[in-house]
């Protein structure tokens, strides 16, 4: 191959002899999901996935692909197959059906109002 690239010239003649390549399934290894904890005190956050042959290499390779520029105090990897997830059809599981403000701070906005009303009733008597 007549290339301007000296690296390619050095790969000849073997380079030109490779005419067809078919990668079988899993040729590029299974995947791991990557989590980065950016600061102490912060949550580890999912940042993406990568292909790796085992957990140690998954960590080693994830360090450069997911933390070479990013601030990171800790890096986690998990095999993709280890993760269980809720399906899109079941998103409604997360929607409450009735008013549950009894368990939220904003369910208690009227307390002050009740006290004010009571004190207003008392004023003419003093």
């Amino acid at each position: 191959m007549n290339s301007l690239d000296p690296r390619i010239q050095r790969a000849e003649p073997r380079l030109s002899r490779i005419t067809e390549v078919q990668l079988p399934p899993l040729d590029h290894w299974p995947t791991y999901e990557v989590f980065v904890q950016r600061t102490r005190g912060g949550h580890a956050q999912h940042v993406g996935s990568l292909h790796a042959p085992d957990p140690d290499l998954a960590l080693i390779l994830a360090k450069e692909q997911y933390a070479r520029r990013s601030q990171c105090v800790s890096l986690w990897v998990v095999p993709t197959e280890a993760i269980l997830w809720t399906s899109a059809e079941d998103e409604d599981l997360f929607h409450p059906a009735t008013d549950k403000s009894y368990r939220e701070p904003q369910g208690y906005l009227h307390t002050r109002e009740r006290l004010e009303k009571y004190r207003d009733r008392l004023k003419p008597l003093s």
Partner: protein
Amino acid sequence: MYGNLVVRPDDIENWGKKVHEEDPEKLAEFEARIDRGEKIEPHDWMPFEYRRQLIRLIEQHAHSEIIGALPEGTWITRAPNFRRKLALMAKVQDEVGHAQLLYSAAETLGKSREAMINDLLSGKSKYSNIFNYPAKTWADTAIIAWLVDAGAIINQTTNSKGSYGPYVRALERICWEESFHLKYGYDSVVHLATGTPRQRATLQDALNRWWRPLMHFFGPPDQQSIHTEKLVRWKVKLATNDEMRQQFLDMYVPKIWELGLTIPDPFLHKDPDTGKWIYTDPDWEEFWRVINGNGPCNKERLAVRRFAEENGRWVRDALRPKNAHYVTPLA
């Protein structure tokens, strides 16, 4: 309710045939979600056509990155000082990194990385045409890092407003890394433009050779393009080719002229009334010739990728776990 998605890698080919069987209720919900500006995530119901088009789009983008690593990668060993050598190493590393992120995003839709690479190497899947041109000199790397990356940023910024979660997340990181590429490219260009007469001359020569591929970068003019109403509706295509080309010209032609360089199109000017850039039609026959395999570097680009894959096969084979099975990445 719980589970992981096990998709046979080549199911994709059959899905397109089912496009007329879409559930109208689910389709309406899907489109309403997109209209509300919400993202579609991998486990959502989606029309087969949406899945198919997105895989194609993201896959092509991934291929463009890994192929795009080649013209500039050529010059790493010949970079003229530490700063440029390190920056070029980092830039080309980023391109490989972007390919990794984009293949991962496309994988969430159910096509395996191996299937995508096979389609690239067989010529079935395309990549950005601009990488079928050679980086002949060091000055070419400056022009590429500035103006080709500028075009890519416009493309990527536009697409980052799209509807598919994993692609949008990948693009956010890519856009951020690309901003260094642009600064590096411009810095390199300015050094050449303000350098010796020979440096200026090689820079002008590089610009002369890259101008037409740059004009082709955003694809054929809108009147020549296939109608893509569904892709617009589904926020897969977010701007027209001409809109992005105009944006590029508006942002970069003044900057090019500011350097004292000439653009090899004497007709190029901005219409004061419409605010649109007028230019000589950049020979779309050449565009089609090159994208269909007859450009200066098409054969070389794929030959190198075939070599890299085949050369690395023993390494991947050596470490592949015995009982591995394929699981689609999550997000």
